[in-house]
């Protein structure tokens, strides 16, 4: 394969190495590292968009002809449109986070490590999107995981951060063990680890029960990444304990990688076994779909219920992030082209909404506001633009029209209704959960806009009007807000691009 095809990955890798090199050479400027990371993710983003055939950028494309969406072979990597869409989404998250992180205190230690690991984690995510092989996928996930464990704990002076890193690490390592065990069983059942081998080439499964057990183990192992209930418990503590910028990256970035991993691992067996009875028991696919559907409903419901009474802002966002993962899993369970597109669009929406929300939390914290939702009282009048952005993000999370969140939920739920097969219950569960979620989002909005500010130390809480949130963070939040509204009003081209990619993907997979 032409190495140029991997240009975006090389850009990110080179940037990571450059950051480490600069650190070793004694550069101590956060702006330099941050600039490299921001620039590299922007360049890689442009390259990926070019590979996807975006008209303006098409000249930049380095992908050889005929590679994109080529029929799946026994190789280790492959270029699918959907994978590239996911790459673009990952790079977007990396771009927002590194842009916002430019506003971290510049005297802070370890900024080189922070940005270097951010880039390596991004690289891992990019490689996940290119995987055509289960082992390669798991290794790429591992690259992203190990980088993020260390990112969570990188401040090394804060017990909270290290505690979060410790929990993240233990549950992550446990999931790694489970995933590899599952992969070993699949290897035993199919005689290979390529998705091609798990898919069309998989002539009658040798040992169906072995495969089923393997898939169950993979649900657990990958469920950790997407924070599917009950593999979610780490997420809340980690999002809460991690530096907020890192939480933004975890919620906005690495979790999405898990969704794409779900697509890769589960779509092939669902589609192949589901529609060609000759290749295996139909019951296998149905059982898998039912199980994934139950996981989806469980995840969204538990996440929402837990968010309902939560008093801390970051933990509430973490729970809402869990419930959003439940919506995405609907797309995996339904496994039709439009459902996959819906889940993908939901992933894109979630990058905007959740990354944005965490970045706003970081910005607000830098203004001296405490961690509880109550501490946000009266923020609306005092910080109108920041509050408006946050309000839009919450409305989008709740699925209010004219925001990106509405579009994604509409596409997802309606595709669950329309798809062949009994999936209406998934849409109904999703609708009910969305209705439930409105209550806690509305509660936050009410706190911000209607409740009077805390009387005691209101002047002290806001040190000085001049103490801004930093231009990097401000720019990232502004871009995200614009994206939420723009894609909410006019989703057309992006949505149809994702739909085309998803139907290609489902076609290639099947």
């Amino acid at each position, binding site marked *: 394969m032409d190495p140029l095809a991997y240009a975006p990955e090389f850009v990110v890798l080179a940037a990571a190495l450059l950051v480490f090199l600069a650190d070793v050479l004694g550069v101590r400027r956060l702006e330099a590292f941050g600039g490299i990371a921001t620039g590299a993710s922007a360049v890689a983003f442009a390259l990926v968009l070019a590979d996807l055939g975006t008209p303006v950028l098409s000249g930049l494309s380095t992908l050889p002809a005929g590679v994109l969406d080529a029929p799946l072979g026994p190789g280790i990597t492959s270029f699918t449109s959907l994978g590239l869409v996911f790459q673009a989404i990952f790079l977007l998250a990396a771009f927002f986070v590194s842009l916002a992180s430019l506003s971290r205190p510049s005297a802070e230690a370890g900024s080189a490590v922070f940005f270097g690991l951010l880039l390596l984690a991004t690289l891992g995510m990019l490689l996940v999107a290119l995987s055509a092989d289960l082992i390669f996928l798991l290794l790429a996930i591992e690259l992203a995981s190990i980088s993020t464990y260390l990112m969570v704990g990188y401040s090394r002076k804060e017990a909270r951060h290290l505690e979060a890193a410790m929990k993240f690490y233990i549950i992550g390592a446990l999931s790694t063990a489970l995933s590899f065990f599952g992969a070993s069983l699949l290897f035993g059942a199919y005689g290979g680890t390529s998705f091609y081998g798990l898919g069309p080439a998989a002539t009658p499964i040798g040992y169906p029960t072995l495969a089923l057990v393997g*898939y169950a183990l993979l649900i657990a192992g990958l469920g950790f990444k997407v924070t599917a209930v009950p593999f979610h418990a780490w997420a809340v503590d980690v999002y809460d304990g991690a530096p907020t910028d890192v939480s933004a990256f975890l919620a906005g970035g690495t979790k999405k990688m898990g969704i794409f991993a779900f697509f890769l691992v589960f779509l092939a067996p669902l589609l192949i076994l589901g529609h060609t009875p000759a290749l295996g028991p139909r019951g296998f696919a149905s059982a898998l779909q039912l199980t994934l559907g139950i996981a989806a409903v469980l995840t969204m419901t538990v996440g929402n219920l837990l968010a309902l009474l939560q008093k801390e802002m970051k933990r509430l966002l973490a729970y809402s992030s869990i419930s959003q993962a439940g919506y995405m899993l609907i797309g995996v369970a339904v496994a039709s082209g439009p459902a996959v597109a819906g889940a993908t669009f939901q992933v894109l929406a979630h990058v905007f909404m959740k990354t944005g929300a965490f970045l706003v939390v970081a910005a607000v914290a830098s203004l001296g506001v405490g961690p509880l939702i109550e501490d946000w009282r009266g923020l609306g009048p005092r910080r109108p633009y920041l509050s408006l952005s946050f309000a839009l993000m919450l409305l989008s999370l709740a699925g209010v029209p004219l925001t990106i969140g509405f579009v994604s939920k509409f596409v997802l739920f309606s595709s669950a209704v329309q798809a062949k097969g009994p999936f209406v219950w998934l849409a109904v569960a999703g609708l009910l959960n969305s209705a439930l979620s409105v*209550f806690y989002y509305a509660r936050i909005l009410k706190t911000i806009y209607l409740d009077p500010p805390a009387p005691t130390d209101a002047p002290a809480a806001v040190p000085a009007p001049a103490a801004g949130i930093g231009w990097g963070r401000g720019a990232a939040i502004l871009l995200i807000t614009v994206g939420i509204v723009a894609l909410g009003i006019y989703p057309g081209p992006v949505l149809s691009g994702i739909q085309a990619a998803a139907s290609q993907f489902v076609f290639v997979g099947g």
Partner: protein
Amino acid sequence: MSGFDVAFGWAWLIPTLTAVAFVIVGVGGRRMARLEWGGWVAVAFSFAAMVVGILVAIGEMLAPGSYTDSSVTWISIPGSPGTFPNGVQLDIGILVDPISALMLLVVTVVGFLVLLYSIEYMHHDSGLARYYAELSLFLTAMTGLVLSDNLLEFFLFWELVGVCSYFLIGFYYEKPSAASAAKEAFLVTRVGDVLFLLGIFIYFAVYATSGSAPGWAAGGFKFTNGSAPFLAGAMGGNTPLLTVAGLMMLGGAAGKSAQFPLHVWLPDAMEGPTTVSALIHAATMVAAGVYLLAVVSLFLGFTPTDQLAIVAVGGFTTFFAATMAVVNPDIKRVIAYSTISQLGYMVFAVGAGFTMVGLYHLFTHAFFKALLFLAAGSVIHAVGTQDLFKMGGLRKTMPLTAAAFAIGALSLSGFPGSSGFFSKDDILGSVYATLGTHPQYWPFFLLALLTVFLTAYYIFRAWFLAFGGDGPRDATLPHAHEPGWTMRLPLVVLSALAIGAGALVFDPAFASLLPGIGVPPTFRGADLALSAVSVGLVACGFGLAYSFWGGGRVFELSESTWAARVRALLLHRYYFKAGYDWIGLRATYTVARAADFVERYVIDGTVRGFERLFAGLSDGLRRVQTGVVSDYAAYVVGGLVGFLLLLVFLAPWLLQTVGGG
């Protein structure tokens, strides 16, 4: 015809104009809170919207039954053979048809008058920019809802209406009661909204996936394909799923239109300014639920089971709310309960299959109810209290308001010749005519008939208490006076409409806005006798009210001794006709108390119960998050075991039993 064709093309201007007002007032208003230009901007834009609305309605009259749909595709998912046969399409569009033209007329006229009235009424309040902005946005939402060309767009505006209402009820958010009323309205209507949304998706699942979707474009949420003539009619499939969908729609309508048992929020919603009560919680927003039922019955159709359920809910609510109005001492709450009761009539009519008759009542009710509220607002503005028992004798100091209230009361009670008379009698007469084929409607019909009497009684009780007598019972009340012209003008206009709007339907051109209603409306066959009965009931209600409360009397149900009761009985027996004796009244009181009990403990209890259930679940689950990582690992392993069992044993078993896959 010619010129008015253009009017259809202008219909989009109506929500746009008020939206522009919202932006101007909302963005710029804060800096000029002192000056009242924000209010005048809102008034000017709503006036323009009203002019366009009237033009659209006239255009519709000149081209009876015409149906103009213009839309753009917002979200589209192409179908594919195999896994996804039909695709999904969501349009945003404007649909002008007779009933939406009628609704536009109602919303824009009442909206303009209420905004004009607000200029003086809200003069002393702070936060006026917020008020006018929200009211303008409300008008946008309501007209957008009326003009929606598909059910999902309808739902979007419906939600926007709900949000505006939430903010307006909580306008005095420093007041705890207002904040809690807003919260209650939010919670209760939310229940209805969820049902509504589920209903939409069930219809979508039934019709749009089957490909055969009369009145519902395949793969989309559109009311028609655009080529189907208006009133292609309900195609009345009758499957259990459709019945469920219809019941969900009823649930949605019950939430918005405050029908039993989701009515609890409306009386409490009177915590907002009176103008808000007039516009939102009487004349327009609550009518959205009825309009929804009308739209569904016209385009999708209800199954017979649904119809019975709707008739039952409507008929029962009519009576139930009226009994609550009978004893309430708060002038605004009396009117609020009367709103619920009148909405019950409309739901009742739509359920029985007389959609147009229900809309006819909606039309007349909007004017006399707005009138009643604005007159009440005028009183409250003048005396500063809402307690009927503190008022009295106001007809001397506020003759115009007294007259306006009296006109509203006459129309509400269905005094012959008033607009309420035509529409209410049309409802009763129409349903009466179907009783032969639908005997199951009988009990609800009787309740609705009985309510005629109660309505006349409670509204004139309110009038006598407020305006009758020699002077205020509470001497501390400020000296009342008539308001200025911006408040008087709306009262006069609405009085004229309250009297005359009902007769409009005798004009065939206007009647084309209510296709199929027939001209003249109330004289169909054998229901002259029924009209007589109903007029008699009105007279009895009026008489009873006069005998108890007329001329400054205050009738008190003495709880102390039998002797006192007998004395009261004897004292008043002289006045009323045989058959309406004290026991009848006593029964009404008992029912009212029971209704109050049901409302306070059963329904509120249920709402709280749900709140507590979710809170409890949430709290219980929360404790699982112990912070100890070993526990989290245990969840992972437990989840693994669970999914393993599910995948290997349970799921195949489930699939075999349920027969999926």
